[in-house]
């Protein structure tokens, strides 16, 4: 009998065993205040859950083994005084000459502002610590309204230890004309920025809210983990713009969920150009009959950036409509993952769901993964999806160059053209200009 060669598979390390662990301690969990219980529970969950590994479906394409968990610490009170200040550009409102309010979240501090006019109307727009002090009942009611610390290690971490937070409440029937802005400024290395954003747009109210997270590029590593919980009540409407321009040293994680009530509308815009690695979970829950949500995303990665975005459009009531368009361009050795799901629950008849993800891969070393999905448990629904990954085509490039436009600029024009359908969905010149600036910078480099 022929002897078969013996194959020995040696595993020095099991895939999915993170090399490092966090060094946070129970003493860091705030013990007093209205959220004390919530935080304590979140802390227990944080300790119970392990870091996600690539054996989990949602994390199959995003590797955390290099995450320097053991080096990141919470910024100390007033740490911003020692760190890079907020660039003036970031404080300029992106949406109007003068915003109705602006909350700046800093390492170990915050600077809230709300115009007296809006304050008089009963609007609350401030940082988490101030809100906990001044509006404890509201904060307690809003915390955990759409996101649970059980959803993952990072959600639990942010739930337990978030130092930076925003609380926004629009009372019933109030329409806020001027946009509200917030900025999470996260300079420095070896830091853990943990944020928690709470929004409630009460019945019949409407608001535009722009939140940006940013930091300079630095040598080293920094972490951001955040929770975003938003409730758009019946007949309310919200326009929510999220911009992410973290430095290239930042590991960025978020769990976000918006629930939209009866005849409520949400227009949700995402822009991502920064970070070393990002994993976002963004979910739209259409809970009331006639609820509508639109999700529009743009991203542009280069170098060794890795952006992974999970989106979920949940149709949980009849006559609900969702429309998602994400467009991304990739350069260098960068990688993007978009994984989207439209879910239609039993009984959500006449649901209309759409999702599309388009990618433009500008370098042979870059890679885009695009994974649409549908799960439909109701009859009489309309759901469509599309996903593409393409390259710059030669003929348009030749055409532009034949008019005297240099190669680099021709490429940039084509990239801008690719993103134009997304830009058309953004009604703010400042936001568009910010992204166009990023396109300029990213296409200009090799």
């Amino acid at each position: 009998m022929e002897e078969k060669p013996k194959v020995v598979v040696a595993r020095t390390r099991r895939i999915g065993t993170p090399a490092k662990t966090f060094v946070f301690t129970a003493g860091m969990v705030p013990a007093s205040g209205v959220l004390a219980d919530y935080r304590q529970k979140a802390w227990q969950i944080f300790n119970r859950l392990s870091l996600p590994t690539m054996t989990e479906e949602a994390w199959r394409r995003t590797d955390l083994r290099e995450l320097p968990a053991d080096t990141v610490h919470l910024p100390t009170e007033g740490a911003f005084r020692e760190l890079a200040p907020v660039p003036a550009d970031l404080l300029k409102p992106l949406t109007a000459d003068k915003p109705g309010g602006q909350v700046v979240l800093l390492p170990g501090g915050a600077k809230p502002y709300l115009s007296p006019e809006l304050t008089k109307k009963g609007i609350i727009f401030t940082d988490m610590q101030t809100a906990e002090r001044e509006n404890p009942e509201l904060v307690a009611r809003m915390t955990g309204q759409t996101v649970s610390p059980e959803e993952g290690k990072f959600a639990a971490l942010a739930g337990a230890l978030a130092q930076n937070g925003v609380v926004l409440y629009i009372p019933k029937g109030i329409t806020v004309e001027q946009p509200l802005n917030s900025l999470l400024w996260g300079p420095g290395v070896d830091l853990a920025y943990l944020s928690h954003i709470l929004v409630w747009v009460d019945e019949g109210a409407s608001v535009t809210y722009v939140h940006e997270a940013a930091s300079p590029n630095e040598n080293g590593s920094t972490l951001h983990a955040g929770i975003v919980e938003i409730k758009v009540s019946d007949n309310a409407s919200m326009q929510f713009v999220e911009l992410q321009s973290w430095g290239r040293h930042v590991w960025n994680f978020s769990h976000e969920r918006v629930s939209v009530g009866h005849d409520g509308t949400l227009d949700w815009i995402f822009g991502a150009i920064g970070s070393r690695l990002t994993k976002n979970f963004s979910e739209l829950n259409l809970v009331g009959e006639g609820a509508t949500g639109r999700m529009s995303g743009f991203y542009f990665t280069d170098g060794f950036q890795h952006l992974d975005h999970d989106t979920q459009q949940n149709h949980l009531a009849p006559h609900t409509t969702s429309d998602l368009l994400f467009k991304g361009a990739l350069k260098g050795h960068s990688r993007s993952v978009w994984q989207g799901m439209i879910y239609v629950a039993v009984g959500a008849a006449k649901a209309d769901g759409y999702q599309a993800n388009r990618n433009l891969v500008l370098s042979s070393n870059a890679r885009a993964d695009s994974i649409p999905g549908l799960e439909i448990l109701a009859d009489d629904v309309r759901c469509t999806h599309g996903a593409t990954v393409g390259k710059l085509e030669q003929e348009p490039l030749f055409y532009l160059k034949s008019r005297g436009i240099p190669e680099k600029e021709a490429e940039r024009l084509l990239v801008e053209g690719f993103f134009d359908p997304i830009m058309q969905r953004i009604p703010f010149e400042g936001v568009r200009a910010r992204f166009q600036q990023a396109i300029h910078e990213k296409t200009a480099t090799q």
Partner: protein
Amino acid sequence: MSELVIKNLHVSIEQKEILNGVDLTLKQGEIHAIMGPNGTGKSTLAYTLMGHPSYTVTGGEIWFKGKNLLELAVDERSRLGLFLAFQYPVAIPGVTVANFLRSAVNSRRRVVNHEDKGMPILEFRKMLKEKMELLKMDSAFAGRYLNDGFSGGEKKRAEILQMATLKPEIAILDETDSGLDIDALRIVAESVNALSGPELGVLIITHYQRLLNYIKPQFVHIMLGGKIVESGGPDLALQLEERGYDWVREKYEETPA
């Protein structure tokens, strides 16, 4: 005076020789027409002059304004004063006609002055409006995505609009008459005539004589089998109109054995 000189040009595409020895000299202010049956290499000549990467020059020379054109990149050729009106202009969704033309105009300015900030937007709009009026184009056209969803006539007019804006010294019109109805043809031809003069040399590439009823060339060349076989005056075009290409084929093509 600008001059385009083509000497014994040989061009292949995917190792197949398409042009085998084209000679042609075209001066600013002159209008030439190259006619010939389909598949004789007329469009290959146009694309090669502009520098399309699919066409390989295997022999010969092209000189433009004293410079070796073959050593210049596509965009450099354009900025030197060469223009190609495409037979099939490609659609570029997301890029408006105005945005595209402004980039093209500003690229030219930056060659002169590296620090140039570009033509002021109001000045550009005014200039574009004038050119569009000249071409009887609706002002909304400037805001449409380039060639995206354009009709055949709109595409050709957009090509001429670009020509009017970029003011080339030598323009090649590749089958500009194809796909146009008689009204569109007249508008395009009138526009070319309005632009032509001592500053502009035009090379019209066409299959049919009909465009030449509107744009009068001083020189007519017949291309067959990858080279120019006959050159003459306007009467040569009329001769083709009357007698077709058969007599040319009989005269120059070897009869199959």
